[in-house]
């Protein structure tokens, strides 16, 4: 019997993996990909709570949809910025854009 | 030109093209079924070389080395020795390297007895280039297989079913040159 706990635990594990990726990746595209995993973990948590605990309104599922939309928007903007970074610095690593540090 | 007109023209062009293509499908293709149906070659057609023997099987070639000298690509190699019993020479070796031959037929023009001729056998493809280093046996064999050959001296000659060599009728001669070829006939007889 699948319970809400299973889904929430999986969501937490995915969240942990995503966090690890955000903190360890040095290529900015990879960082954005890790953020995607984070967002998906959140959407999964929303959807599972809605399916288990909200039999009428399914507000959580609507919110999961919204998370997907936000993910798409975030990624398109992020990639546009990364393209500019690539044009000005020639690479999209974290070293490349640390010149402000002096 | 308005946008609608442009769109209409494009649609009309595509429609015309597709109609043309569709009509083409039902027409017969002009494909030649080559390996099954042999092509009709003109009587004079330099496809390969052969060395013609006389009807009695004796050598027609007098080993005068004219062809070896005439060859621009130097693919003809001839070795000979003097005939100990009569006059003239005997052949030791008569090779034509058909790989490097450029089929200009200069040797055919040079031959005083019309022994070396052009034949219509063009199916020379092979898996082994060595088979195209033609020696005298090969050249004789080619001549025996050929039904029709050409030399400037005798014009087009035919081999009949019983193996005799005959002069082709005037309409098969190049340009119908029966009169010009008359002196050549006298030399033959």
């Amino acid at each position, binding site marked *: 019997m*699948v319970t809400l706990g299973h889904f929430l635990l999986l969501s937490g594990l995915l969240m942990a993996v995503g966090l*690890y990726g*955000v903190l360890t990746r040095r290529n900015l595209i990879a960082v954005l990909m890790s953020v995607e995993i984070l967002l998906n973990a959140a959407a999964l948590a929303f959807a599972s709570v*809605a399916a288990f605990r909200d039999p009428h309104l399914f507000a959580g599922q*609507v*919110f999961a949809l919204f998370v997907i939309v*936000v993910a798409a928007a975030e990624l*398109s903007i992020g990639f546009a910025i990364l393209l*500019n970074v690539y044009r000005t610095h020639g690479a999209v690593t974290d070293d490349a854009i640390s010149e402000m540090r002096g | 030109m308005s946008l609608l007109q442009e769109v209409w023209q494009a649609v009309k062009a595509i429609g015309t093209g597709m109609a043309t293509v569709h009509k083409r499908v039902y027409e017969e293709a002009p494909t030649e079924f080559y390996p099954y149906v042999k092509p009709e070659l003109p009587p004079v057609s330099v496809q390969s070389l052969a060395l013609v023997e006389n009807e009695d099987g004796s050598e027609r070639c007098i080993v005068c080395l004219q062809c070896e000298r005439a060859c621009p690509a130097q693919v003809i190699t001839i070795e000979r020795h003097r005939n100990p019993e009569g006059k003239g020479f005997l052949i030791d070796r008569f090779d034509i390297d058909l790989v490097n031959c450029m089929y200009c037929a200069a040797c055919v023009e040079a031959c005083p007895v019309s022994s070396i001729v052009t034949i219509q056998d063009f199916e020379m493809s092979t898996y082994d280039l060595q088979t195209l280093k033609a020696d005298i046996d090969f050249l004789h064999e080619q001549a025996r297989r050929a039904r029709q050959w050409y030399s400037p001296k005798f014009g087009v000659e035919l081999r009949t079913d019983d193996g005799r060599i005959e002069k082709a009728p005037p309409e098969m001669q190049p340009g119908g040159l029966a009169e010009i070829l008359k002196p050549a006939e006298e030399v033959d007889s």
Partner: protein
Amino acid sequence: MSLTAFYALAAFALVFAIFAVTTANMVRAAFSLAITFFLIAGLYLLLGSPALAAIQFMVNASAIPIMTLFIIMMTQSRSSAGPRTWQIAAGLLAAAAALVFFKGAVGHGDGQITPVSPETLGVNLLQAALLLFEVASVLLLLAMVGAIVLARRRAG
């Protein structure tokens, strides 16, 4: 059977997610990210929500990794440098913190899954969550315009 399916989907999703955040080959990372999202779409199916699964499939599992592959090609970053030591430490620490945060989920409830049809979801989206829907459309429009403006090649 649903438990078996859950464990299979969850295990593979985790494995591919971990592969996506650790591999140095960016093309493979993007691809394993896509597989993770496919498996999450399967989890949505388990949750009785085919519409959400289809949208996850369409947006997260297809469009986003393809865009990622594009940007990987355009910025010529086929491989990523390995993390620094302090980054690994920080990452593991953050991951552990997230797990501590979620430990309350273990053994949480045994509720019944209520399937939601696409119609219900659509009606909810256009009635109860109309404002959210409109905000999402404006957000997408802004993102599109912003991305075009940002990525446009400037003259000179």
